């Protein structure tokens, strides 16, 4: 426990440290996650510091999240003891999720199928299939759970869908224009007609490496898996977000598409905004480097660490983590 209160490491120390994940650190990590994950004292720490403590092996490739020593970035999202059920069957999926995300951080949630990762991301954006039964989610200081889905979006929360739905009869261009104008209205800025908006959007297409005719097609209709994911990122590029939840943005992508999507996401990052990735595979984490990796199991985050957790996962599977 006392380890958690170590001062933040200096940048030179961070860069010199190598990944040296071990079963022992895993054990200590698990203990800490069970006992005091994200409690009050945790909030005083800079994230990178806690990483260092947990694993003795920080990966600081991005160096994000602790730009100034001792000056902790603001908390963006704080989820406490969040529980949720499927609205129809009342089956409990989330059994007390705790998570804190600060400005500029990249987090990844990994876990087996059915562990609740996707449910968690859907609950955050207010999907009607799920009902929150307890706990809290504070986003930018406001109660997220009180907001309608569109308010959450306008307030700066974006989720890329795992399987974006087809909208026959609505062109991608019109859809983006509607979403863009909703945002402009919220910000009290001028809404754009189709011609002005075309100017805005055509510049963004390069971000996801898509051709202009992409805009004339109906939303996701007949899109390949890769095109759907690119389209989600295009929406993110046009709308912007303080926190982007990327739900399996890597599934169904070949390496080229994955690189394009990752490059686009990296290009959108600023010291202020944050990303929460949901993924099965370490592959994505090679392209978008997280500060934190959380392991989800049976509706809870059971372990938090750095990129080295993912390496253990890749080699030995979830068993190595849950049995460790």
């Amino acid at each position: 426990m006392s380890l958690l209160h170590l001062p933040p490491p200096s940048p030179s120390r961070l860069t010199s440290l190598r990944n040296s994940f071990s079963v022992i650190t895993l054990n200590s990590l698990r203990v800490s996650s069970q006992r005091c994950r994200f409690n009050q004292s945790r909030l005083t720490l800079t994230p990178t510091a806690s990483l260092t403590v947990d694993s003795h092996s920080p990966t600081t490739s991005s160096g994000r999240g602790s730009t100034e020593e001792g000056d902790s970035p603001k908390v963006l999202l704080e989820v406490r003891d969040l529980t949720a059920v499927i609205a129809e069957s009342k089956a409990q999926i989330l059994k007390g999720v705790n998570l804190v995300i600060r400005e500029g951080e990249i987090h990844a949630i990994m876990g087996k199928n059915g562990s609740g990762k996707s449910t968690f991301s859907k609950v955050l954006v207010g999907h009607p299939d799920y009902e929150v039964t307890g706990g809290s989610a504070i986003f930018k200081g406001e109660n997220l759970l009180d907001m309608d889905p569109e308010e959450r979006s306008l307030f700066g929360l974006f989720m890329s869908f795992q399987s974006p739905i087809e909208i026959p009869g609505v062109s991608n261009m019109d859809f983006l224009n509607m979403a863009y104008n909703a945002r402009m209205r919220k910000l009290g800025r001028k809404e754009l007609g189709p011609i002005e908006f075309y100017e805005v959007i055509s510049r963004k297409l390069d971000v996801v490496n898509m051709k202009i005719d992409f805009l004339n097609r109906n939303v996701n209709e007949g899109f390949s898996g890769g095109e759907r994911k690119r389209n989600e990122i295009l929406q993110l590029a046009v709308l912007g977000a303080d926190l982007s939840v990327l739900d399996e943005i890597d599934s169904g992508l070949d390496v080229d598409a994955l690189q394009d999507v990752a490059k686009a996401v990296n290009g959108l990052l600023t010291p202020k905004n944050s990303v929460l990735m949901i993924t099965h595979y370490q592959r994505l984490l090679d392209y978008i480097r997280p500060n934190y990796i959380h392991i989800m199991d049976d509706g809870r985050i059971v372990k938090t660490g750095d990129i080295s957790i993912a390496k253990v996962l890749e080699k030995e599977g979830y068993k190595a983590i849950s049995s460790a």
Partner: protein
Amino acid sequence: MATVTFSPPFRFSPISSFPSKFRTRTRFIIPPLSSLTPRAALSDPFVLEIAQTLEDSVSTPSPSSLPPPPLQKLRDTSSESILSMSWPTRKDEPFRFIDTSFIKQSRIHPIPIPSPSSDLAGISSDTQFPSLVIVDGHIVPSASQLSGFPDGVYVGSISGISSEAIMEKVLQLVSDFHDGDLFWSLNGIGAPDVTVIFVPAGCQVEKPLHLRFYSREGGEIGSNYMPLSSPRVLVLVEKGGEIGIIEEYSGGDADKCYWANSVIQLALEEEAKIHHSYIQAQTASAAHIKWTFVRQESSSNYELVEISAGGKLSRHNLHVQQVGPDTITELSAFHLSVSDQTQDLHSRLVLDHPRGYSRQLHKSIVAHSSGQAVFDGNIKVNRYAQQTDAGQLTKNLLLEPRATVNVKPNLQIIADDVKCSHGAAISDLEEDQIFYFQARGIDLETTRKALVFAFGSEVVERLPYNSLKKKVQSHVKALLETTSGGAP
């Protein structure tokens, strides 16, 4: 939803062949009950009365101005067939879901030829295509614009045909269809003219022909006075020919009451191709009943896109008859009921030859609590129609409590080596689609409007001409704006 039964509601007495060009015309005499002949025993006095009125409206004053033989033949066969018909009621299967009584309760008055000096200012000319204007069933040459067709193409009144060969073909086709109903026959009796469109063999007409049907005469609502027009068109495309037809209906004053009883026949010879766009935008109090009869020879290609949004009562009877193998038939329809109105499509596709390919999509939106949509789509795959590939789908969106849709997609298959599918869906908007919009910050009202509009777009987008597509889109948009359909 599907059924595989079909029982014709009317039994028609076989039409005798006409050995001579002229035949004495059947006169309608409404007999006193006691003197009914056995055949007339089935007659409906109301039907005979309308038939009589219609016949009087087209009767020619002197023998010197006799109608061309095909028109005479049409009138004769129609008069013949009507003797055994009665006004439909809800007990007749094809009319189970529609109420035609408001027509029956009106004083029906066939509209005479407008005087040449008539004011045609109300008829807009916003078309970029060659167009033929037909006002209350009568061609108005002065308002039409028919230049630019290739040599050999004929567009105009049946009386203007000079080629004997064409006249002969028209004569054969004009009363070639024996599965019509009362309204088919009433049109045959009352049609003042037949508009003939002839495309010779191998001729591909680049620009579509825009047929603009306009209803100008109307009775005041509540006046019980219902003017009736009976426009009739025959399209004949010879081997390898190709043309696009836009058939558009509209009316004048929004609060006028009228009845348009229209028929279009399309005959496609071998390898002929017709793209047919049908836009029904009659005024809100109108009755609109239309027949489309298509005859497809081998390897011909017929594509129909229908958008029906007007009228208080709109009924489209569509019959496609395959008369050779390897035909392609694509039928799409979008029906919109935004007020106390009924949109009805009864379609029948009869396949008698091998390797026919057909797709049918019907979509309807009912956005009013007393609005209604009806679809009865029958596909008959007969014994010799092996390797038929037929698909049929109907999707319906009900936006108000008590809004009604009655759908009956049905396949009758006798051949044993075929690929056929059909389906029906009736729903509100899809939750997942709504959520996708909301997740991008778009409010519910905007979302619903966009999704409702998009529902019809699937069909509207199939219209082949951009200017027409845009015009229809803004019309549909305006109609949807008038409803609460966009609101949660």
